[in-house]
């Protein structure tokens, strides 16, 4: 090995060790765990641990609650991600256009939900969503809409969670998109205007193409994050009513830490990883050939 090679590895070693111990090792152990029936009995006495091969995975695919959880999660991702990104983009455009005079204030205010704790704001949202006394239902009542049992009705529980999660998260993407917007060269807009492009044309032909790499990155991060829905249903609904807010991760948590079937729960984690991996890989394709569409 060359001298510079040795220096390079030496400098990188601390980071590599950290990655190996705190990332690679747990993943390998998790994978090994998913091939065993580690449960309460194994926790008490390790000699009862059995190697079960792919049984956990096969059993998982036959568990109706898993498919329901996957369906709930896809619902959350399919509605929540576009809604969240649209809101972020809208807010970023408004801030960038300088329509609002108090730009710095609004930027901070809209970002504030991101830095709050889910558990704390969930308490506030439970007030807002309260069937009888909640501000949301009172506002609806003012326009003549009957009260909705947001967290008690299986049809409305997921929409309520989506609204809450979107509100909580859109500020993060907004800041990233705002930075990307500010990086678009002014000259492009100038020449577009000279060519006679209106506001809409400027957006579709200048802003949007320039934003595409950032949007894809934001989309991938948001999809990966939203697939891991957990804290919101855990705090607001405990998976109910009628299991309508059980997400894949919540399902995994229940299997792993409520019933202590850690082997089975690890299998859930790997299946979720594969799903997120597949969806993210699909999204990358948009970035690779932006002209392809």
């Amino acid at each position: 090995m060359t001298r510079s090679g040795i220096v390079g590895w030496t400098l990188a070693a601390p980071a590599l060790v950290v990655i190996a111990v705190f990332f690679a090792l747990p993943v390998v152990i998790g994978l090994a765990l998913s091939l065993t029936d580690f449960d309460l009995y194994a926790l008490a006495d390790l000699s009862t641990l059995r190697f079960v091969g792919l049984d956990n995975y096969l059993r998982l695919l036959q568990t109706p609650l898993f498919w329901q959880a996957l369906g709930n999660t896809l619902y959350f991702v399919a509605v929540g991600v576009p809604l969240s990104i649209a809101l972020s983009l809208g807010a970023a455009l408004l801030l960038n256009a300088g329509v609002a005079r108090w730009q710095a204030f609004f930027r901070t205010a809209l970002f504030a939900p991101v830095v709050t704790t889910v558990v704390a704001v969930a308490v506030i949202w439970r007030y807002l969503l309260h069937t009888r006394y909640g501000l949301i239902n009172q506002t609806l009542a003012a326009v003549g809409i009957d009260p909705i049992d947001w967290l008690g009705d299986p049809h409305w529980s997921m929409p309520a969670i989506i609204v809450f999660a979107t509100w909580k998260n859109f500020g993060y993407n907004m800041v990233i998109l705002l930075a990307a917007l500010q990086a678009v060269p002014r000259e492009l807009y100038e020449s577009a205007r000279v060519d006679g492009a209106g506001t809409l044309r400027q957006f579709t032909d200048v802003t949007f193409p320039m934003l595409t790499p950032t949007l894809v990155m934001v989309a991938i991060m948001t999809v990966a994050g939203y697939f891991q829905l957990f804290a919101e249903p855990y705090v607001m609904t405990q998976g109910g009513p009628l299991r309508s807010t059980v997400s894949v991760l919540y399902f995994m948590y229940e299997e792993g830490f409520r019933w202590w079937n850690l082997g089975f729960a690890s299998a859930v984690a790997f299946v979720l990883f594969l799903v997120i991996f597949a969806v993210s890989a699909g999204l990358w394709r948009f970035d690779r050939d932006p002209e392809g569409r």
Partner: protein
Amino acid sequence: MRLRELGSGSRRDVLRGLAAGAALVALGGCGRRDDRDGVLNFWAMGREAEVVAELLPAFRARHPDIEVHVQQLPWTAAHEKLLTAYAGGSLPDLCQLGNTWLPELTALDALEPLDERVDASAIARDDYYAGILDTNVMPTTGGSRLFGLPWYVDTRVLFYRSDLVRAAGHPTPPQSWPEWLAAMRAVRQRSPQTYGVLLPLNEPDPLFALALQQGALLRDDDTRGAFAQPAFRRALGFYAGIFAEGLAPTMTNAQIANVWDEFGRGLFAYYVSGPWNIGEFRRRLPRERQGDWATAPLPGPDGPGVSTAGGSSLVIFRSSRKKAAAWRLIEFLSEPATMQRFHALTGNLPPRRTAWRSPELADDAPSQAFAAQLERVRAAPKLPEWERIFQEMQRAAERVVQRVQSIDAATTELDAWVDALLEKRRWLRARTLAAAAPR
């Protein structure tokens, strides 16, 4: 027990959860230091944890050398926290435990047997309601042992609108299933707006109580389901029949916004529920309705029936280094006088007959139905998987009530599910038998 807490989930629960969560984090960091200081760590849940603080000054006066630190866990997270604490070796010295969780922690060998300590103390075992005490007795390789002392009890009885039932021609509470059915039919016939009974479809307890009256739910040493056997099918048949006849609305708790309002309005005449509703009915029913409700023990197939044996116990963890001090606290909390004070503060019913002699309980008509019922309660099957089976049982019942499945199909499917779940138990049993067999 936990269902009640989940059902009444309110913002206070969330706040309590927050407080407990934050405190737990703090506790994790200083567990060892507490040991050196000689502080007794006591984990309690929900409202009980708040109230126990008010009982402690009397304990401190008697044992000034023992400092007790009460940690509040929210019911919704307590189970996970206990298992995680076990895995992480950070269990407290003693704990309040829902008695259906004892099998699990015994399977983990986390609990300290209390037989010797009880025998050496002034606590008389036969002062406890037998069915409740039995939930704390677990089989071990060295015979059955007592792993907890009941702290308060929970069972299911009938709450009913005495005025409606009387007007329908049934002035005395029903003793048997046929009598109960007749009363419900009469109520329904008299007024089409009134159902006979409310059995929320997401609550397993009423069906479970009926099933306990009929016989065993598991077989082969608790390693296989017995739900397709005649005993459970009779219970499910009776339960589903009530819905099929239109005597009960097919509703879950989520669809009934406020049980007390609907009870006061007369949507249903009977309601199967637990001790906490005595207080709730007094608080929430309008004053003019207060004379119109009563409680009665559960009717059985052909005479007074058994009901569920729920509640919380006090346990000491094997890992504790202050077992003697922990036992002092359990002794104190188990004294009839302390139990009476506890009842006055929470409405929780005491598990000792002596404690029931206080005028607040002895002269209280709604509580007396519970006293009668407590003489006839039966423990749930004692295996760690029971809680899951219990929930799955209700889902099967819900499918029958909604006419998605026949009783045959639902119980066969339930047995298959239970058998798959208990596969490890069968394997463990075979292993133990093989090890014990002479060569």
